[in-house]
Structure formats: structure tokens, C-alpha cells
């Protein structure tokens, strides 16, 4: 049931972001809600169902944007697997660990997009523009993350602060 709640919240977040948030926030300040949800799923859910959920969330991001189908789905399952691998090897405690995971996720995003754009023959923005888009997305996501995680934790009936729920996570 909790998987469905995260997926439904993902759909709702996508709707709100493509309308309300894009109207209110500055143009380059677009949080990557789906990436945050995938990280959340990797902290909370076991591998099997979490992978399927990540794939569904990634596909949702593809369908709500002009991206080719599969681009974000591929990134989402890769990120989920990497995050699980990190959690299996590093003892994670407190919010700093989650900030670290977000940093890892965003660190991978530019090379991933640049590489796949090259492979698929898509045009990738110039380096300066790509960095500015990335920076805006990164900062916006960092600011949104505690709020989003708090809403998710409350929706799923979890105890503790927004960063404590990951103690329930099952390592890969």
C-alpha cells in the first residue's frame, strides 16, 4: 500500500510542479521531485518493490516532460541500485547521510544526461547553461527535500523527524 501512496504522491507532485511550482518559482529553479522520491524509496523500501517503484517514477518523469521515454526511468533504477549499494556498505545515520545521497545523485546527473544525449543524438545544452540548469535544480531540490520527506513520512504514518525513517530501510 505504501508503494502506491508514494506513486500517487509522485503523480500529484508532478502535476503541481508542472503547473503551480513552474508558475511561482524562477525559471531555472526547478526541483527534481522524482529524483527525491527515488532516493526516498531507496531509504525506505526493500530492493524488489523499490526497483519497480523507481522505474515507475522515472517513467512518470519521462511522460510529464519532453524527455524521450526511458531516459529518466533508466536513471531512476540506476540511482536506486547505487543508493542501496551505498547503504549496504556505509553505516548511515542522521540527515547528513541523506544530504550525501542527494549530492551523489546530482553528481551523476550531468554526466548521465550528457552521455545519453550523445548516444541518442539529442542536443545537450552548452556547458555553462547545463551547469546553471543543474545548479538551480540542485539547490531547489535541497530546499524542497525536508518538506517533501516530511510530507511522505506523515502520509506513510512513520515516526520521528523527516530523516529518521531511513532506519527502516533494508539494505541490498
Amino acid at each position, binding site marked *: 500500500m505504501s508503494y502506491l501512496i508514494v506513486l500517487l504522491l509522485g503523480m500529484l507532485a508532478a502535476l*503541481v510542479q*508542472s503547473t503551480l511550482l513552474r508558475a511561482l518559482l524562477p525559471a531555472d529553479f526547478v526541483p527534481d521531485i522524482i529524483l527525491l522520491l527515488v532516493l526516498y524509496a531507496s531509504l525506505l523500501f526493500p530492493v524488489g518493490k523499490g526497483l519497480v517503484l523507481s522505474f515507475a517514477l*522515472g517513467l512518470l518523469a519521462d511522460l510529464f516532460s519532453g*524527455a*524521450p521515454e526511458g531516459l529518466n526511468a533508466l536513471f531512476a533504477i540506476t540511482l536506486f541500485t547505487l543508493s542501496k549499494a551505498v547503504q549496504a556498505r556505509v553505516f548511515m545515520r542522521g540527515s547528513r547521510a541523506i544530504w550525501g545521497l542527494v549530492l551523489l545523485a546530482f553528481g551523476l546527473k550531468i554526466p548521465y544526461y550528457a552521455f545519453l544525449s550523445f548516444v541518442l543524438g539529442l542536443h545537450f545544452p*552548452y556547458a555553462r*547553461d547545463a551547469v546553471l540548469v543543474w545548479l538551480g535544480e540542485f539547490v531547489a531540490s535541497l530546499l524542497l527535500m525536508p518538506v517533501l520527506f516530511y510530507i511522505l513520512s506523515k502520509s506513510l504514518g512513520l515516526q520521528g523527524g523527516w530523516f529518521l525513517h531511513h532506519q527502516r530501510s533494508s539494505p541490498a
Partner: protein
Amino acid sequence: MVKVFTVLERHRYSALFLVLLGGALAMLFSRADRQPESQPLQKALLELSGPFQKGITKGIGFFEGVWQRYLYLVHLEEENRLLREIIEEMKQERIQLLEFRGENSRLRSLLGFKQGFQRPLLPAEVIGKDLSGWFQTVVIDRGKRDGIEEGMAVVSVQGIVGQIMESSKSFARVLLITDPNSAVAALIQRTRARGVVEGDGRQLCRLKYLHRSEEIEPGDLVLASGLDGLYPKGVLIGTVLRTETKDPELFQRVEVKPSVDFRRLEDVMVLCEKRDLEEADQP
């Protein structure tokens, strides 16, 4: 057989990962062979989310209207004075333009030129924007049943907006000219130098393939040249913001500010082929 199941059971997560990886890769690499008409998932979600996006956007518009019209009136007096001045200037310009229009139409009829917009314009409202900051698209409240097809040009009163990249029954997604995957054949109004305008992925565009010997200045108007067969010739794309010429490079780097304010884009017009509209009107 039992051994196979045992191995699969032991590596079930790896197998699941590989299956999903294969699915994502198959979707990505099959896109090159597919026509826009065969994207059922995209169309279904567009159709499903469209009404919600429209509802939310209408709500935002309502509150924005209340705020602008009744609450935020701080600079109204100053704005009023400025607008009156602009109206006076525009009255003078209008008289001049009417003169030019008369002269132009006489010359056109003499030379047998076609009129600019022969295709009918279909008004549409922007109801949603792209979820990601990496792609520049918007969703409009018109679709196939209104005669909208992939590849049609979209303009606004301010200039070129983009082209239809996919359309469902009632909604369509527009690829904006600021997206890096968009290209418009363009020319500089003053010098008639030709190039291609591509998006920079943010809020600006770049005019490419403009030879370094061309004399371009900031403020020059960039228009559609019509050579791509999509956008009508003469429609405004934007103005030159800055130029840069680096020594070994053959072409200049020209940054263009689009005439359309994409952040405030609400109403657009789709340039429909006449035959599409006629077909759509038929029951």
C-alpha cells in the same frame, strides 16, 4: 529446470534489475524508429493529466488576476503615466505603419507575392509546463480533435513559440524554441544574414552558422527566414543580445533573447494547415 529456478531465485534482484534496465533501454532506443503517432503512453498520460493541469492553471490565473487587479496597485499611477506616453508614441507609429502597409500591399499585388499567414490560426491556452528543467516544453489545451498535428508551428502575438511535438485527443505538447533540440531557420532583419536559431536549454537562444564577417549588433531583430518550411517568413524570433567572435572559429557566437516571454506565456496560436481544420470540422 529446477537448477535454473534456483539460480533465478538466488539472483532475483539482479534479474529484476536487468529486466527493468532492458525495458528502459528498449524504450530509449526504439524511439528513433517510431513515428509520433505511435506513443500510446505519452498520449494517454497527456489526456489523463490535461484536465487537472488545466484546472490548476485556471485556479492560478484566477488568484493572479485578483492580486493584479485589486490588491497590487502600488505603481499604478506611474504605470498609467508611462502607458499614456507609449500610446501617444504608438499613435504616431501607427500612422506611419498604415502608410507602409498600403504601399506594401500595392507592391505585393504588383509582384504577385503571397500574403504572410495563409494558414488559419487556432488559439490555444497554455495549461502546463515541463516537469524537468532540462527540457523546454509546454502543454496546450488543443489536440487532434481540433486539428492539431505533430510538427505544426506555434506562435504568439510576440513571436515564434515552437512546434507541436506530440498531440493526444484534447491536448498537445509544444517544443519551445528555447529547447536545445529545437531549430528555426532565421535571418537578421537589418543585414539579411542567415543562420539557424537553437535553444540554449534555459531562457535564451543561439544563432548558429553565422559567418564571422557578418556585421551583427546587439539589438538587431532576428526573424524566421521560412527556409525550414515550418515557420512563416518574417515572424519575429527575438533580438540579438550579444555577439562574440573567437579567432580560429569560422562562425560567430550570437546570443538571442526570444521576443516571447516564456515565463508568462498564456495564450498561443497554432498555425494549422487548412485541410486539417476542414477535416477536423467534419463529424
